[in-house]
C-alpha cells in the first residue's frame, strides 16, 4: 500500500534524508517597511522576548523565550512584525529586484508571503493576490490592514484563471496548494497517500501552466511547496522544463540541492538547481526559481 509512516520514511531515505523527529521553533519576520530593526528588537527584548537571528534570513528571528503569545503584543498588532515559519520565509526572498514590479501571488491566503512581498517591494509596484476561497481572503485582508500594505489588490479567483485578470507579470509567486509534511501535522502519515500526492501534483501542473502564460518574457516564477514528495517538487519541475519553455535557475538559499535522479528516473539536470529543505529547526520545504527560455 502506497501510504503509511514506514512507506514515506523509506522514500525520504531513498532521497538521502534519514527521518528524525522535529521540534519546530516559532519564528517572526520583521516588517522593515513599518519598523526599524534595531529599535524593534530592543522593544521586544524589553518585553522579555528572547530572539535568535535565523542565519539564512535577513529579517527572520526564532523565538527562544516569551512568557506570552508573540501574536498578542502591540508590536505585532501594529504590523511591526509577522509570525512566519522560517522555511516559509525563504521563497519570497528568491526573486531578483522586486521594487516597482508587477507581481502575482497566485495562491495568496492567508497572506504571510503577500505581506513579505510587499515588504520586499517597499510598498511600490503592484501585487495581484488571488485565492480560490473567499473566506480566506478575509484573513488576507486583515493581514494587509494590520501590516499597512498599500500596493495589493486581491481577487477571489482560482490561480488557474489568472489570465482573466488581463495582466502580464514580472514576478510570480506560486506557493501552491500541496500535501504538506509531517512536521506541521501530527496525523500526516495517517492521512496521506500517494494518490493524494498525485492529485495535488496535477493541480500544481495546471497552475504552473497558467503562470507560464501570464509571465513576461524576462519574468521569474518562484515555485514552492511545503511537501516533501518528489511528485509535487522535482518531478513537477522536470515536467515544467520539458513542457512550459522555462528553465530552472540557480538559487542561493538555505537547503540542499535537489536530486536530478529520483526513484530510478533521470530528470533534466537543471532540476539540481532546486532546493530541498528537510525538516529540522524548520518545517520541510521545496523552492525553486524558473525563468522563461527566450528564443
Amino acid at each position: 500500500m502506497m501510504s503509511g509512516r514506514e512507506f514515506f520514511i523509506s522514500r525520504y531515505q531513498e532521497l538521502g534524508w534519514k527521518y528524525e523527529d522535529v521540534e519546530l521553533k516559532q519564528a517572526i519576520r520583521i516588517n522593515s517597511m513599518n519598523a526599524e530593526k534595531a529599535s524593534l528588537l530592543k522593544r521586544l527584548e524589553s518585553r522579555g522576548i528572547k530572539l535568535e537571528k535565523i542565519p539564512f534570513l535577513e529579517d527572520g528571528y526564532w523565538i527562544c523565550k516569551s512568557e506570552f503569545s508573540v501574536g498578542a503584543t502591540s508590536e505585532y498588532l501594529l504590523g511591526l512584525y509577522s509570525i512566519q515559519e522560517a522555511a516559509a520565509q525563504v521563497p519570497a526572498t528568491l526573486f531578483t529586484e522586486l521594487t516597482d514590479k508587477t507581481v502575482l501571488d497566485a495562491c495568496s491566503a492567508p497572506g504571510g508571503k503577500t505581506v513579505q512581498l510587499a515588504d520586499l517591494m517597499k510598498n511600490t509596484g503592484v501585487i495581484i493576490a488571488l485565492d480560490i476561497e473567499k473566506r480566506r481572503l478575509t484573513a488576507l485582508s486583515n493581514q494587509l490592514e494590520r501590516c499597512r500594505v498599500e500596493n495589493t489588490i486581491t481577487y477571489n479567483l482560482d490561480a488557474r484563471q489568472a489570465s482573466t485578470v488581463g495582466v502580464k507579470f514580472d514576478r510570480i509567486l506560486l506557493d501552491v496548494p500541496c500535501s504538506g509534511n509531517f512536521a506541521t501535522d501530527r496525523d500526516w502519515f495517517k492521512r496521506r497517500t500517494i494518490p493524494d500526492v498525485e492529485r495535488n501534483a496535477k493541480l500544481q501542473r495546471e497552475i504552473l501552466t497558467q503562470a507560464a502564460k501570464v509571465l513576461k518574457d524576462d519574468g521569474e516564477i518562484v515555485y514552492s511547496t511545503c511537501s516533501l514528495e518528489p511528485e509535487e517538487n522535482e518531478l513537477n519541475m522536470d515536467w515544467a522544463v520539458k513542457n512550459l519553455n522555462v528553465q530552472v535557475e540557480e538559487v542561493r538559499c538555505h537547503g540542499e540541492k535537489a536530486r536530478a535522479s529520483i526513484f530510478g528516473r533521470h530528470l533534466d539536470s537543471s532540476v539540481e538547481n532546486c532546493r530541498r529543505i528537510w525538516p529540522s529547526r524548520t518545517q520541510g520545504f521545496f523552492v525553486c526559481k524558473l525563468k522563461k527560455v527566450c528564443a
Partner: protein
Amino acid sequence: MMEPIKDFARQLNSNISLDENLTVRRQNRFFLLNKTLKPLASKDFFHAGIYLGKEKDGVFFPSFNLLAMIADKKANKVTVDEKTEWLFICGRDVFKRGIIRVIGSMKKGSYTLILNSYSECLGFGKVLSDLHEAKEGAVVKNILDIGDFLRREKSSSKTHS
C-alpha cells in the same frame, strides 16, 4: 462618497483630504488606491490598496489604516503609559492615571485617538468626563482598539470550525 470618512475625522477634531479619484467604495467598504491599482479596480476585487473603513446602518467604522492617517495630523490624541496600552488593546477603557499626554479637546462626549509612547495609534475612544476635572476612574471609553485583529481571528475560526 467621502462624507462618512470626513465626518468621522471631524469627530476627532481633524480634517482629512483624500484624492476622490482614487477613493473607491466596494459595497459598504472604502479603499484608497494608487494610480497603478486604479485600473485594476474595475474588476470585481475583494480588497485593494489601503482599506479605510466600512459603513453599516449609517454608522462609519474606521480601519486602523485610517486612524493611523488621522494620527499623523492635527487631531484629539491621548498618549497612554505601557500598562494602560496593554489594557486598552485588551478592550479596556482608559483610566486617568494611565494618561501621559493630552492633545486637543478632552471635553465629555468628544472622541479621541489613543496613542502609545511611540506615538503609534492603538485605536480610539469617547471621552466620558472632562479630563481636566476628572479625579479618577475611566475617562475614555474604548470604542476600537488594535486587539480587534485577534478578535477577528477568533470569531473567524469559530465560524469555520
